[in-house]
């Protein structure tokens, strides 16, 4: 009895010991690799640096200059964002040179579930140093909690003003815990007011790019008479079905009413049931609800995946001719199709002349959650065109910074897009991304889907969408 119990205890002891050893080994290694200085030092550093930034140049230059000198060699900056796969490869290529020069290791982590995860991470105290938000509305809601670091004193405002169109800076300013803060800076943008068309066949058929809305509608009718449906439209996108329709409404809103009204609408001050919004949807319906104008007829709009919609344009002969979508859609085009040769885009024409040439854009805003000198350096790097140069070259994105030269773009199509953004009379961000989630990513999607599929009348659908504001 004694013997066995002795053996039992020694075994238990060994088990316990080995378990604690494993625990301490793993735990210790991890906390060392995280390399996070304790909070109090953080504050001190930020205090010092604020002084430095304000005095300008006193401490040997901006964080970026210091980083370039190798001050922060061996440090790590974690980054979290929604882009994965091919985009991640492009991103990593674009920061490679910076990492090599400065010795700062930017550890990017991409997740398809970014929108759902970022809140949990921030709440759980595990926020990344820098996060990439494709929806400023989401960042705005986190900024309100006071967990986003105000960039006003961290980045040199003069430099920012010189390098960004003022409307980009305005869109980065949000309500913080106490007053307005600069919640983020824009690193990438994409343009939405584009109509893609199969260039070669378009020219062979003798069509001309329409400059006004009337010309566009006349051409649409002409194509219908010739035997094709002019437009291919698809809004199916799984749980997000309907978002493609919201872009149309936003684009037409900008062309039929003033930018001020658009801003009010986005903020919820102008109701969806107002005549302005209703008129915009009616203009859209002239195309959408005409079965001769839409490939597959109106009923196919809701069931066609947004990425598959442009496919008929690349048949020979094309079965449809126009696809209104942002520049990212080119990643869905067949690999054999060549930009500037097989396909190209034209600007969705203005409807009412008095509103000029408005352009609808979207983009990615970078926000900072942990204030360390090396994070500041990386943030400053992201405000320069250099940080996105190779991505711009490989296509698919437009740099919002002014120091991104037009000759970086490797295709004429991208170059024209960048020019379109720079020359736009009005630049407005995708409204549904700015509205609160329950409207912009909820009732707006659903209401439009119901309307297009015919389960709700226009008035009823608009009421439904508006009801989202009350929740």
């Amino acid at each position: 009895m004694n013997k066995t119990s002795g053996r039992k205890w020694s075994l238990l002891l060994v088990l316990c010991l080995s378990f604690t050893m494993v625990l301490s080994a793993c735990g210790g290694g991890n906390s060392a690799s995280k390399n996070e200085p304790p909070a109090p030092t953080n504050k001190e550093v930020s205090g010092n640096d604020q002084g430095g930034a304000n005095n300008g140049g006193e401490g040997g230059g901006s964080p970026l200059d210091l980083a370039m000198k190798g001050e922060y060699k061996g440090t790590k900056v974690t980054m979290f964002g929604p882009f994965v796969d091919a985009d991640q490869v492009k991103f990593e290529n674009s920061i490679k040179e910076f990492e090599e020069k400065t010795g700062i290791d930017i550890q990017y982590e991409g997740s398809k579930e970014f929108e759902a995860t970022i809140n949990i991470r921030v709440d759980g105290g595990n926020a990344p140093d820098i996060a990439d938000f494709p929806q400023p509305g989401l960042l705005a809601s986190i900024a309100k909690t006071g967990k986003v670091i105000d960039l006003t004193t961290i980045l040199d405002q003069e430099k920012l003003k010189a390098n960004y169109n003022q409307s980009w800076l305005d869109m980065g300013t949000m309500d913080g815990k106490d007053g307005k803060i600069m919640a983020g800076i824009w690193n990438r943008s994409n343009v939405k007011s584009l109509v893609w068309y199969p260039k070669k066949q378009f020219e062979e058929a003798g069509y001309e790019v329409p400059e006004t809305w009337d010309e566009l509608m006349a051409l649409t009718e002409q194509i219908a008479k010739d035997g094709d449906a002019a437009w291919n439209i698809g809004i199916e996108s799984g749980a997000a079905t309907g978002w493609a329709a919201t872009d149309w409404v936003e684009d037409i809103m900008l062309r039929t009413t003033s930018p001020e009204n658009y801003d009010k609408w986005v903020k919820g001050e102008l109701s969806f049931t107002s005549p302005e919004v209703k008129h915009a949807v009616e203009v859209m319906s002239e195309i959408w609800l005409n079965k001769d104008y839409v490939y597959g007829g109106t009923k196919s709009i809701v069931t066609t995946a947004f990425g598959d919609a442009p496919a008929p344009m690349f048949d020979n002969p094309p079965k449809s001719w126009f696809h209104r979508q942002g520049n990212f859609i080119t990643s869905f085009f067949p690999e054999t199709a060549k930009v500037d040769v097989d396909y190209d885009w034209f600007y969705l024409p203005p409807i009412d002349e008095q509103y000029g040439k408005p352009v609808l854009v979207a983009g990615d805003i970078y926000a900072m959650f942990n204030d360390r000198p090396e994070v500041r350096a990386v943030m400053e790097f992201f405000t320069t065109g250099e940080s996105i140069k190779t991505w711009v070259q490989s296509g698919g994105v437009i740099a919002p910074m002014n120091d991104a030269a037009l000759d970086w773009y490797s295709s004429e199509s991208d170059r024209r897009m960048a020019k379109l953004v720079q020359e736009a009379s009005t630049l407005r961000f995708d409204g549904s991304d700015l509205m609160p989630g329950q409207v912009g990513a909820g009732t707006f999607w659903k209401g439009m889907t119901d309307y297009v599929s015919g389960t709700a009348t226009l008035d009823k659908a608009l009421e439904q969408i508006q009801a989202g504001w009350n929740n």
Partner: protein
Amino acid sequence: MVGRKKRKGSKTVVNLVLGFICLLWLIPTLGLFISSFRPAADILQTGWWNVFPHQEWKKSGESIQLSKETDLRQPIEVAGKTFSDDQLKSGVTVDGDRLMWENRRARTLSVMEQGWEFKPALTLDNYKNVLSGKEYKLKNADGSETVQKGSGLSQAFWNTLTIAVPATVIPVLISSFAAYAFAWLRFPGRKTLFVVIIAMLVIPLQVALIPVLKDYTSLGLNGSYLGIWLAHTAFGLPLVIYFMYNFISQLPKDLFESAFIDGASHFTIFSRLILPLSVPALASIGIFQFLWVWNDYLVSLIFIGNQPGVQVMSMKIADLVGSRGNDWHLLTSAAFISMLMPLAIFFLLQKYFVRGLMGGSVKG
């Protein structure tokens, strides 16, 4: 005799019904399997059953040219008959042949006849892309293209295995200790403690995510294997304890009593008697826990993240689809590759599986 015949007959009926249900259950998987060998463009156009020999309308080579001035919005006259545009779009059958637009713009109709289609277009590209990584074409400044290869599934596979094996062994081990204690040891608060553990079964793990994440952050366990082992262990324990308790408490009491009289300690009883006797239960709950951990997405998403060094299969597969879902067709083959491991485990341990399930369910 009559009774036996009747029973035999009803058995065939039961088997038929079961076979039918099995078939129904398997059809979606079969469809997915076939789709995983088809090119993406084909998946979009036709259903997976088109890989089997079937009849379809084929172009006969003949076509009818209508007048260029034909108004498509009016009834269209073809060889003495009138059709509507919609009819011609979807195809209309006339005397065994089918008329359909070949080129609506040029106003040509093609005449189609029915024929057999035997050769399906199948490809291994989906598997190739998933296993060895996709190729990304990147444009350089001068317009030339470089091809960069992405990573395949192998790293994620080992990561998942590194997570799944300890996350199965640890809870099963701990819970069999606990189940033995609950079943055969008498200590104060035993019933209350047991009820508390059973009550935990009801709590969804989602409510624990943020509090646990906060603790992990302060302990520095985030993104480490240890952290996720502990998380899976904790989330799995209530069910595993309950299951093991049901099994162990059914073992004959006399066995332990005689062992105890012969001088065996609790630990000896546990390691020499309980463990060998409960192999079926251990195996079946092991399969359950392993499957759960292998397929898990949420817990990994929160506690381990998406860094390539620790990324698990389910997350890697989700990423394969691309930021905007452009490579959705790769999901088909990726699903089958990720299924291989659980299937292997299942067939390896399946003889215990049924026994173990019974052990937990039949009381008394």
